[in-house]
């Protein structure tokens, strides 16, 4: 089975500091998309950032950026200047080109300490 692995069940960070969440994935495809989703206690999955596999440049959205290493099949999320509102479950997900099925990791619970 083609999987997504998040090796950190829990992470914590001090407010205003930087934290990196890890994700590795398995795929035999060359065309795919990668996502990081945030799930706060409200339960709604919120898209944080998206990366197309054919793009070499790492995606950035304000305080959120990724380190995409295609050969290593690694897709980590860096959160800079962490805020209390960043506390949530974070899920890494992959979808293959031509398919619209998302495959999720088990998630990382991020705690932000004031």
């Amino acid at each position: 089975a083609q999987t997504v692995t998040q090796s950190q069940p829990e992470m914590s960070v001090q407010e205003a500091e930087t934290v990196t969440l890890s994700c590795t994935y398995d795929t035999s495809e060359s065309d795919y998309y990668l996502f990081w989703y945030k799930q706060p206690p409200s339960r709604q999955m919120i898209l944080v950032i998206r990366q197309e596999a054919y793009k070499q440049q790492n995606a950035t959205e304000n305080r959120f950026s990724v380190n995409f290493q295609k050969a290593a099949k690694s897709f980590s999320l860096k959160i800079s200047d962490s805020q209390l509102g960043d506390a949530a479950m974070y899920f890494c997900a992959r979808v293959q080109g031509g398919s619209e099925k998302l495959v999720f990791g088990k998630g990382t619970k991020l705690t932000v300490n004031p």
Partner: protein
Amino acid sequence: DAGVTQSPTHLIKTRGQQVTLRCSPKSGHDTVSWYQQALGQGPQFIFQYYEEEERQRGNFPDRFSGHQFPNYSSELNVNALLLGDSALYLCASSLVWDGYTFGSGTRLTVV
């Protein structure tokens, strides 16, 4: 612009019963996918509907079925409920690569 709306938000059912969950997609989206999220796990793909037909299906038994209506809204039906069906059920709508917009889910508890 309304996002994805799911109903009900919470539901308690007895083993063996049947349940129907509903989803209204984001305006302009024509594809609806359903996911099951067990406690402490990532969501698992159940199936996807496009043009009122099931386009893809995950590894779920036939007890799980669905429907999409002409207005793109969708229903998820689960028959012969088991305790293990207790989970958060998420609906996501999409339009090609516009991205996936998720609802807040329905929390189903089977007792």
